């Protein structure tokens, strides 16, 4: 069932939580609403569910206007951030609740409810906990019960509010994988809210990045990461290295550092944004860039070695971060305090007061200097 969000606006007193939001969520997709706290993502989710009402705009499920429809009638599955399990009911009673409160004409017989609850509990692999109370479960188990309960009414739309926010890293990873499988198996349309960019990028078909009540960009995770459409998205989606400078002709310069731009842009005050994988490190400067850096720390944990670097002879608000492979690390053996040079391969140019970046690429030929390569 597709979801259409049309021009939703919501105010809490004088605070505008959502500003004219429009978003199309195609049938069967898993869409992440990503943003910092206070960006309005949870409010949007609650408006889709009907737990909150919009001041303006419409919500459509499968082309049908549900804006005036009560939560009860919308038949969505909702997973709350803190699970919201009924504390005085057993796990089985929790999962059965939706079926139990059906009007007697529609309610299946007790035996069938029991069977369906068992099935749902098996699905979340917690059949053996049917008689426990929520207080006796771990966080991950509670989350799975909350999910089983949300799915008990066979909803075609599943909404999840920070579903893995309160869980530790290992459990999160398991649950994410498992939600993905579940989603493919049951083919519902899901929207989930998160402030964790890694989670959003890993789990979603599409991610809507929100900031201050507006949607900044909606795209697939790959495109979002490779081509952020705004400075905000850039900053929000992971570590970014920034070089700020003044342009004269085709050279962007600040202090001792400079970068030659492949095409001359209009403004003079410019910022160059680079992801850590878009920069290479060398022991000598390249032909098109002179960005001296000093190694501040070396972190060996993980798939790559992460170096934290500080500028030498120029300035940046945040330290730079660049990843190199373990093989490169072993041949180069960089130490804290060593000096090296950053060589951008791809960079994103933003005028200081502008919003939208412009992506730059340097030809392989003009930067290869085999002697200097690590």
């Amino acid at each position: 069932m597709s979801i259409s969000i049309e021009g939703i606006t919501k105010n809490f007193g004088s605070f505008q939580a959502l500003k004219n939001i429009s978003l199309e969520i195609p049938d069967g997709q898993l869409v992440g609403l990503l943003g910092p706290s206070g960006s309005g993502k949870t409010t949007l989710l609650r408006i889709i569910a009907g737990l909150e009402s919009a001041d303006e705009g419409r919500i459509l499920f499968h082309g049908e206007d549900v804006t005036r429809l009560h939560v009860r009638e919308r038949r969505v599955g909702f997973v709350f951030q803190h699970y919201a399990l009924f504390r005085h009911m057993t796990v089985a009673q929790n999962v059965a609740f939706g079926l139990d409160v059906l009007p007697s004409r529609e309610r299946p017989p007790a035996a069938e409810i029991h069977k369906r609850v068992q099935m749902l509990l098996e699905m979340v692999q917690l059949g053996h906990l049917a008689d426990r109370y929520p207080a006796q479960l771990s966080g991950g188990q509670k989350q799975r019960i909350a999910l089983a309960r949300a799915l008990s009414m066979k909803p075609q739309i599943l909404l999840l509010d920070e579903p893995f926010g309160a869980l530790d890293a290992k459990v999160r990873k398991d649950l994410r994988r498992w939600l993905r499988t579940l989603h493919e198996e049951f083919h519902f349309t899901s929207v989930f809210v998160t402030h964790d960019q890694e989670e959003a990028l890993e789990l979603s078909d599409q991610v809507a990045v929100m900031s201050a009540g507006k949607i900044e960009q909606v795209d697939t995770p790959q495109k979002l990461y490779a081509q952020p459409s705004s400075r905000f998205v850039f900053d929000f989606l992971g570590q970014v290295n920034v070089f700020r400078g003044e342009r004269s002709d085709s050279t962007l310069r600040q202090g001792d550092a400079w970068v030659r731009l492949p095409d001359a842009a209009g403004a003079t005050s410019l910022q160059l944004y680079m992801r850590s994988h878009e920069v290479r490190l060398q022991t000598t400067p390249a032909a098109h860039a002179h960005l001296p850096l000093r190694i501040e720390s070396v972190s060996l944990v993980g798939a790559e070695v992460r170096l934290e670097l500080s500028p030498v002879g120029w300035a940046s608000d945040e330290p730079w971060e660049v990843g190199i492979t373990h093989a490169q690390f072993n041949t180069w053996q960089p130490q804290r305090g060593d000096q090296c040079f950053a060589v951008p391969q791809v960079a994103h140019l933003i005028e200081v007061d502008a919003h939208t970046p412009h992506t730059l690429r340097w030809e392989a030929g003009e930067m290869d200097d085999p002697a200097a390569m690590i």
Partner: protein
Amino acid sequence: MQQRRTMRAGDQPLVKWTLIGLAIITTLLMLVIPLVLIFDMAFSAGVGNYWDNLSNQYTRHAIGLTLLVAALTVPINLVFGVFLAWLVTRFEFPGRKVLITLIDIPFAVSPVVAGLLYLLLYGSNGWIGSWLTENDVQLMFSWPGIVMVTVFVTCPFVARELIPLMQQQGGEEEEAGVVLGANGWQLFRRITLPNIQWALLYGVVLTNARAVGEFGAVSVVSGNIRGETNTLSLHVELLYQDYNVVGAFAAASLLAGIALITIVVKSFVEWRQARQRAPLDELSDGR
């Protein structure tokens, strides 16, 4: 070699036992001895006389009236308290904070003042009272007046018990219930009520105890008409003024009995509440 225990503040045996001793003596002097004395005096002329005193026509009427007042007050304040607690914990509206403060007025005001206010409003010369008199409705100096002031004096108990609990529990469970299709009554009956039941019972026990024992406010609006508007606590005073000390204490022993039952029920409810919360506390240590 024996290791010297680290001393905490107030860990000196002398201080500790002096304080404990003082507490015991105070409790004995101020609570236990008077309580025992009530029963001692009540039975001082023998058990037969005790029964005679209680089965006295006026005493029986006082018992009946007191039970009637409690039987009306408790349900009224039960509904009122739940409604109010639900209102201030589940909705945001202008004046919400003021309302929470207003609930405490009956605690802050002396019951006698409350009684006088009601007399001023609903008495035959009062603003509303004069209109009521014209229409042949008499509230003051009859049982409806007694119920009215008792309701006023006891109305914070239930709400005061429920508000912090419902605030702490939050409305998420109810929201989860609505999303799953429950209607308003099902929500209240199956989610809200089970979550607040022990606090609610606690509030009811306190309301009942106060409703039965209320003296000040009731004494102002009742008019002390023997066999008509005399509640048990007023009756005790009346008997005492009649120099029927044994009779007064016999009636007082009933009130003391109710108080003892209240304490037992209250302890039980507290114990249940603590048990209900126990697993939640366990949970918070990082499972």
